[in-house]
């Protein structure tokens, strides 16, 4: 039998049939679910942000108005709201990066067996999956007045009264977010580092590059797509987290929190306004990120 010429996947024609079903048809379930439960709600939410609040059955009337937006932008606490949310998310992302990068480096280059790698990855996913509420309550046991940190400090005599400020401050938020979202930062960096050709590192060492040059020029720069990706993931996730600041920020107002507050009071148009602002910020950040980095490279060729 003559050898059939095998074309590589990149020369493949489009619309290959899988299981007798065209590729286009396979995309239908995913597309339908995405449209109904994601794009449609977001569109409606944006539209509702332009409606007036009124004591009707749904809490608003379909009368177009931009009064909601004017109220939002002229309210006295709006600048601090935006600034707080933005800065909290930014600092949290930077902190996650500082802690996550060595972790990803260790996972890629210092562990040899793939099954152990899998176990470490799942080990790191677990804290992300504890409920927000339980996780934040558990932090009382660590940072609270009777918590383990204060207990240890009191027992060794470094301080004489428990520090109350460990718990209700910005730093608490950073600590909690670090524990929660580290996997979001670490996993993309790990995926990007995995794709670095080990021959490059070997070549650099053969050419007698000092270790910090190897680390910076090769590892850091080549895993930059993963770093930016992880940074954006953590940033967007902390933008929308309202449970943690609600319990532990000690009064710092964030956008997610005001959305939740408005929703609890059934003020849908106001909630939609803040939510649309949040959405615009997130999409803008994501857009910049995807222009800088080709995330598809992390996943398919």
């Amino acid at each position, binding site marked *: 039998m003559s050898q059939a010429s*095998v074309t590589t996947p*990149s020369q*493949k024609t*489009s619309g*290959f049939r*899988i*299981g*007798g*079903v065209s*590729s*286009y048809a396979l*995309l239908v*379930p*995913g597309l339908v*679910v*995405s449209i109904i*439960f*994601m794009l449609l*709600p977001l*569109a409606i*939410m944006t539209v509702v942000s332009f409606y007036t609040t009124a004591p009707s059955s749904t809490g608003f009337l379909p009368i177009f108005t931009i009064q909601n937006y004017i109220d939002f932008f002229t309210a006295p606490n709006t600048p601090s709201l935006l600034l707080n949310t933005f800065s909290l998310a930014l600092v949290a992302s930077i902190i996650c990066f500082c*802690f996550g990068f*060595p972790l990803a480096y*260790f996972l890629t280059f*210092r562990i040899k067996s793939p099954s152990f790698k*899998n*176990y470490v990855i*799942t080990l790191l996913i*677990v*804290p*992300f*999956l*504890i*409920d927000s509420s*339980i996780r934040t*309550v*558990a932090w*009382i*046991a660590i940072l609270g007045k*009777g918590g*383990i940190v204060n207990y240890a400090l009191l027992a060794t005599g470094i301080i004489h009264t428990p520090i109350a400020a460990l718990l209700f401050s910005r730093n608490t938020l950073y600590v909690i977010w670090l524990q929660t979202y*580290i996997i979001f930062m670490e996993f993309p960096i790990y995926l990007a580092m995995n794709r670095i050709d080990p021959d490059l590192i070997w070549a650099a060492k053969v050419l007698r590059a000092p270790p910090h040059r190897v680390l910076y020029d090769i590892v850091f720069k080549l895993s930059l797509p993963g770093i930016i990706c992880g940074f954006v993931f953590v940033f*967007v996730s902390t933008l*929308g987290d*309202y449970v943690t600041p609600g319990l532990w920020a000690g009064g710092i107002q964030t956008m*997610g929190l005001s959305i939740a507050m408005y929703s609890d009071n059934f003020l*849908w148009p106001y*909630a*939609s306004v803040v*939510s*649309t602002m*949040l*959405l615009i910020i*997130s999409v803008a950040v*994501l857009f910049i990120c*995807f222009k800088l980095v080709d*995330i*598809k490279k992390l*996943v*398919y060729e």
Partner: protein
Amino acid sequence: MKLQDIGIRTYVGLFILFVYLPIILMIVLSTNNSGAISFPYQGFTTKWYNAVPTGYEYGSYISAYYDWAFWQAFQNTVYVAFMAAIMTTIIVTCVAMALRHRILGRNALFYIILLGFLVPGVALGLGNNILFKIMNWQFTWWIAAMLDTVYAVPFGLILMMARFDPDLVLYERAASVLRASPMNVFRRVTLPLIRWEVVSAAIFGFVLAWGELIRTSFVASGTGVIATYINTQLAINPITPKWYAVGAIITGISIIALVIMGWVLSRGQKK
């Protein structure tokens, strides 16, 4: 190099300890014999897990085993998580299969799906809430499962596609060149090669739906899912070690599911 090695191993070990510290403390303190949720530790007891209620307790003082509201929420959560897992598996498998080839709109679709977890949860939850209020549809648990599916599909997709055997397409073409029908190609060639990834996508969908609070809080009804139940209870009740007991149970299940998934993934890698 030796010193660097020791340094980074210490760092990783300490970090994992830090990340697990709340869980460990939670489990330890759930056996605490005092009504307070912090140290000092006053003796081991399992009363927060299974003490028989005398009829006077409420909220935070009923032990975990006898709190019917908690088990109702637990049942809801299992229901939602299973549905989310099934939907996630179906969608992730279909989309991963389709995205391998250069079809029209491939990039656009990838971004749309990726938006599912990149959009802030509050926005999606709020949007869905308003949508269903306008349409006057009832809040069933299917909706919560769908929200969790939208959230889990990007994870599952990346997980699956990052582990695809690059020769998978070649095997499929070989099979169809040897005149296997497309259905047989899928059933006997593709599916066995990706079965571990499919299973791990299902488990991941389950675990993500298990712990999701923000998105489900907007579409929950009745007793709610575990996450929303705990959230609302903590807002109105004093905090006692009972919640640690509850948290320990929930975390235990997540950990078991994840360990299974880790095992499944490592099976998938031994080719």
